[in-house]
């Protein structure tokens, strides 16, 4: 029976340990736990999607968008987004507001925001229309 030299076995062992450490170092996925039957009754709205960057669409997915009203007459929008990749990704997003006449409202809070997401993480992003004239919104993503 042919025996494997001690040095090769040692090298193999080091390689195996390195691979395990490398793989565990890369893994940054998020595990989530929540109530099995949700008590919340969100007002989920139907959305239209315009995809011009398929790579980005393959990285981040808008799961749902719900709408509420705060401070009496201001629309609040919340989008639930999911990182479809197994590693941390950072995207930028921005909400824009549109009035009854279809005119864009130049809101002070229309800013690109950076959103770091861990692998497979789902989170919520939200904004409030600072003008009661806002009736519609547009949510944009970019890398």
């Amino acid at each position, binding site marked *: 029976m042919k025996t494997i030299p001690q040095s090769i076995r040692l090298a193999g062992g080091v390689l195996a340990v390195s691979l395990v450490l490398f793989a565990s170092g890369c893994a940054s996925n998020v595990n989530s736990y929540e109530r099995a039957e949700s008590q919340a009754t969100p007002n989920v709205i139907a959305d239209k999607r315009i995809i011009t960057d398929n790579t980005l669409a393959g990285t981040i997915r808008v799961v749902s968008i719900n709408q509420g009203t*705060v*401070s*009496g007459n*201001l629309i*609040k929008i919340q989008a639930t987004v999911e990182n479809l990749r197994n590693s941390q990704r950072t995207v*930028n997003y*921005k909400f824009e507001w549109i009035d009854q006449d279809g005119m864009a409202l130049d*809101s*002070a*809070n*229309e*800013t*690109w*925001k*950076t959103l770091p997401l861990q692998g497979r993480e789902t989170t919520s992003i*939200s*904004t*409030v229309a*600072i*003008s*009661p004239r806002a009736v519609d919104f547009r949510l944009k993503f*970019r890398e």
Partner: protein
Amino acid sequence: MKHTITSRLLGLLAVGAMLTFSGCETATETRTVDAKGPDAINTSAINSQDWASAADGLINSLLSSNALNNAPHTPAILAVDRVINNTQMMVDTDLLIKKIRVALTNTGKIAITNTMGLGERAVVASEAAELDEMQSGKKAKILVPDYTLYAKLIQQTDKNGKMAQNTYSFQMSLVAVKTGLTVWEEEKQIAKQTKGAGAVGW
């Protein structure tokens, strides 16, 4: 013949030298970017996108809290109190406060008084009120604010080897004048890590 070869060689060298030197010359290039976007230059300090992001987060929190629903009248009168800068940077706090003022005024729920509070706006407004009193002979009616807004900026610096982290906290409180109670408070933080970082500030 030998002379021609030398001349050609010299010519080639001259062209090479010209190309080399012109390659070193960097033309100044300026482009306009969205100050509130990711194209803004990112540093370990608070950049334009950070100010916009912090202001946005604070506004969203205030409006989502429905704290202004209990205002005695609409629009409620707001006086901007002190903004304390406890960072190492010399910054104009209007970079934050102006965005908050614009947003709150746009909601129609807040009117900001300039006859109270600190800063150049209060001085100008007070002088204007005095002038009006002198001209009309009537005591100018100054509206008492329903709320005061107080803000504080804090910087915390942590270092680990060559990695430095600057965490900027933007704290804001809305106080009801009649009761002295804080009706809304929020803190937004922006943390920036820099590798091989030098000091930030002055």
